[in-house]
């Protein structure tokens, strides 16, 4: 984005660095509001709603301009702000006023409590961050990462394999590549190809088998060829942990006979 756009949005402080970078710090709408309140040095108990709403909407518009996916909660907050703003403009509803003549509730009250509550947990998160940093700086004996040299592996079940293949298909379907030609690949051809791949590589990651595949039919042929190699005990599938990437290695016996 260029500088003029930046100034338009943030005219009060053009010396601030690009918005794109700062937006990353805003996890959610409450964070943005807290940021605006702090930046403008506003009294949280007396927020100028019209002003803050305007600023908030500017940010929202900017986020949409730079194609940041604006989730529903951002719009809900925008609606809440506009609602509070409109209520601030209206005289207090005489019907809603309490019979004992107490002052009606400030329409901002609920939002302020929500902001303060949110700030509390942000502080708590900060505390956890510091603690984590300290814990990262200590070692207990014997240090675990030294013991983990010997990899523990988990055998792959058919269910794991299907789940992994399902993911590959999903990824394939999300890519909107066109199927141009119907190249015919037989399982036998594929078997030969996989065997050659395994001669070069000692170990392969399951999903990497499918990266260059261009059609769904081809995907399925590859998967069937893989199953065939498992059946023939030429390859061995394992995971370091359950539900993690599936690795493929040549089985030792096959290596000896080959």
């Amino acid at each position, binding site marked *: 984005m260029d500088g003029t756009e930046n100034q338009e949005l943030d005219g009060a402080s053009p010396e601030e660095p690009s918005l794109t970078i700062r937006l990353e710090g805003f996890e959610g*709408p409450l964070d943005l509001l807290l940021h605006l309140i702090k930046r403008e040095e506003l009294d949280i108990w007396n927020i100028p709603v019209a002003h803050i709403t305007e600023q908030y909407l500017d940010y929202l518009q900017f986020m949409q301009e730079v194609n940041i996916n604006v989730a529903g*909660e951002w719009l809900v*907050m925008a609606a809440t702000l506009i609602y509070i703003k409109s209520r601030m403009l209206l005289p207090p509803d005489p019907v809603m006023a309490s019979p004992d003549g107490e002052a009606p509730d400030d329409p901002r009250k609920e939002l302020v409590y929500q902001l303060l509550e949110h700030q509390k947990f942000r502080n*708590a998160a900060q505390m*956890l961050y510091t603690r*984590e940093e300290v*814990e990262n700086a*200590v070692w207990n004996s014997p240090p675990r990462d*030294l013991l983990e040299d010997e990899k523990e592996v988990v055998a792959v079940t058919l269910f794991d394999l299907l789940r992994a293949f399902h993911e590959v298909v999903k990824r394939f379907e999300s890519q909107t590549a066109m199927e141009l030609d119907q190249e015919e690949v037989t399982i036998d051809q594929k078997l030969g190809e996989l065997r050659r791949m395994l001669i070069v590589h000692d170990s392969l990651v399951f999903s990497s088998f499918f990266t260059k595949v261009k059609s769904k039919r081809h995907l399925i042929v590859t998967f069937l060829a893989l199953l065939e190699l498992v059946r023939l005990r030429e390859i061995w599938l394992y995971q370091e942990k359950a539900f993690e990437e599936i690795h493929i290695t040549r089985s030792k016996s096959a290596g000896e006979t080959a």
Partner: protein
Amino acid sequence: MEIEELQPILEAIIYAADDPVRPEQLKEIFTDESYDKIETALHRLAEEFNARRGGMCIREIAGGFRMTTRPEHHEYVRAYLQTKPGAKLSMAALETLAVIAYKQPVTLAEVLAIRGKKSTTALHTLLEKKLVVITGRKPVVGRPILYGTSKEFLVHFGLKDLSELPTLEEFAQMAGELS
């Protein structure tokens, strides 16, 4: 056995153990000794050990005792072991974790209400890292799942127990500085 005899044995066990050593576990080994005596010995050991101000310390973590290096030496230890600092949790995950830690048992909807944004991804990370566990279901319509922190949470953040966390009121004072 005298406490003086017990102490060095406990020190050896704590050194060799993978997880924080809890007095209940020690009671199973020292069947003749009282729980109180074991606990006293543990505390006295920790106190004496830490008074030495050596490179190691004995700390109370997750209801047990663990021997670790002192954090202030991390630069040199890391340089020697040639390791990089482990992956840290994102701010979103930490915030979600903070809400769960203080409000547990808590539902995802309640976390959302406090954070003002969806927390599904963060929650999945926390469940995967076993810092958060499912503690049950809330007896309301839809029976939503309740989440709480795990023992791994205490270990990860070096906490003796949940009561060692600063109170929310302390954070409220910090938040009050906003106004």
